[in-house]
């Protein structure tokens, strides 16, 4: 039994005719890392904005760190750190000045300010770049600074909106290490992503979103077993052959998904006497994702 850092019930957010979030329930227990996984346009960013009251829900209940939103959002925000999807650092300021500004915005007292900034510099591995202007930093450094800026006041809850979007794999792994370190310190994290691997590696619980709704949630491993079984048979061939394979698998009660040039037959370990040639591989979260959202991942 643990406390909830975030609790959403039946949250709806509409923009004109578009319903961005459509009756979302979300629990984030304290001390865990929850990944919001979904294709572009699934409502992840809107959910993030709702949590800082930068968007106001049309329906439903929202609580963050025990504060009701939107009325008590400011008190909640004081204990949250937020990393936006789009970089909004002050580019003409130095690394240290950016952290100084946020040390003030997050109300760190004069006595603790110096130390908080040093700690953030260490965390972002930017101690020797403290006097560099932000527009002179590499993309990876900027992203690390963006995350460290959100941690300067030791928040209880960190909201990361697509923390590694648009970065090359090496930089992405650096950031994963940073987020993992944060997690092991016991900070609660809600992270949105459309990278399967990111969710699989970092999240204790994954919530798959599609069209503003939660379509599944659980630990990555449990989700895989529940929806895609243990093994997948991947069959390659021309389109006609693939359609034929889909029909055969369907007749045996197995679920399939297209993977560009192949068909993946899910949960083949259960299909007794199922004889088609192909490559066997373990089921993964991507299988679940595509099955549930009907969308390929870029």
């Amino acid at each position, binding site marked *: 039994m643990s406390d909830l850092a975030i609790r959403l019930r039946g949250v709806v957010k509409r923009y004109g005719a578009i319903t961005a979030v459509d009756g979302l329930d979300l629990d984030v227990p304290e001390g865990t890392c929850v990944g919001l996984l979904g294709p572009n346009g699934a409502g992840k960013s809107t959910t993030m904005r709702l949590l*800082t009251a930068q968007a106001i829900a049309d329906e439903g209940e929202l609580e963050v*760190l025990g504060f009701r939103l939107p009325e008590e959002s*400011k*008190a909640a*925000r004081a204990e949250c750190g937020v990393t936006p999807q789009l970089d909004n650092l002050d580019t*003409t300021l130095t690394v240290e000045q950016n952290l100084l500004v946020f040390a003030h915005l997050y*109300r760190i007292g004069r006595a603790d300010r110096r130390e908080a900034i040093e700690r953030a510099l260490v965390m972002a591995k930017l101690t020797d770049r403290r006097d560099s202007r932000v527009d002179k930093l590499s993309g990876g450094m900027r992203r690390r600074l963006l995350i460290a800026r959100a941690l300067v006041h030791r928040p209880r809850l960190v909201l990361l909106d697509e923390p590694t979007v648009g970065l090359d794999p090496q930089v992405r792994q650096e950031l994963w290490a940073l987020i993992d370190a944060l997690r092991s310190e016991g900070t609660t994290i809600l992270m949105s992503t459309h990278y399967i691997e990111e969710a699989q590696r970092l999240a204790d619980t994954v919530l798959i979103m599609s069209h503003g709704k939660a379509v599944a949630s659980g630990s990555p491993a449990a989700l895989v077993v529940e929806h895609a079984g243990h093994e997948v048979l991947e069959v390659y061939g021309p389109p006609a052959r693939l359609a034929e394979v889909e029909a055969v698998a369907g007749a045996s009660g197995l679920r399939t998904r297209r993977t560009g040039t192949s068909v993946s037959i899910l949960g083949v370990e259960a299909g007794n006497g199922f004889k088609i040639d192909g490559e066997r591989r373990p089921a993964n979260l991507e299988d679940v994702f595509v099955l549930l959202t009907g969308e390929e991942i870029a």
Partner: protein
Amino acid sequence: MAVANPPRARRLGRLERPALTGVLVREVVNFSSYWKSSTFSSTVEPTIYLLAFGFGFGALVGRIGGYEYVEFVGTGTVATAVLFSSAFPAMFGTFVKYQFQRTYDAILAAPVDTEELVTAEALWIATRAGVYGCVPLLVAIVFGLDPAWGMLAVPLIAWIAGFGWACFGISVAGFSKSFENFNYVVSAVLTPLFLVAGTFFPLDTLPGWAQFLGNVNPLHHCVELVRHAAFGWEGWTDLARVAALVAFGLILWRIAIRAMARKLVD
């Protein structure tokens, strides 16, 4: 599962000092990276107006409304400097900060409300206008305007007027969907008000409608107050002008908050 127990303060108040300070610190730190260019333009611009009008027109006009023309223009361009260092930076700066740099998204994710954000931004711009507004007066003194004790009130007058124009600029940015819309405001609102402010020529020779426009023009009240600060106060009339500037500031302040809340919180 129980919900995390909330700490003492359930709800933080409005217009809190730490929030205002946070936004102001950001502006001050940023200012350290661009103060040279902004001080240059705020100093050179009124000097050019002063030289061009003061000596160009001054040679033709001689005395106006009982003043040497250089004195007339030197005091009048304080309001111009205030307008240029408040309304314009507020319009463009606000638009850039929410649209391109997304600075306001970052600030509003911290414990800062739109009301605090807008107020702090306006306070900062007003303070800059209070300082830059004095430049034409100093330039005019160099060119022969006699210093007077009353001039010590000029930074305050410039500050009050600057606050109003800053809020005006923020409101315009808040209501505009694109940069292009600023052209309408500059051509249809700011330029006419700039010309019927009594900066370069007195209003009492103008037709009635222009005089009316002058009397509802905050810029005109600013011009008159600065002139009276330099040449002698006019009692109740000046108090009424101060009241008009304060009212202008307060009304536009609330409008600016409304406009930005609409823009920043969806």
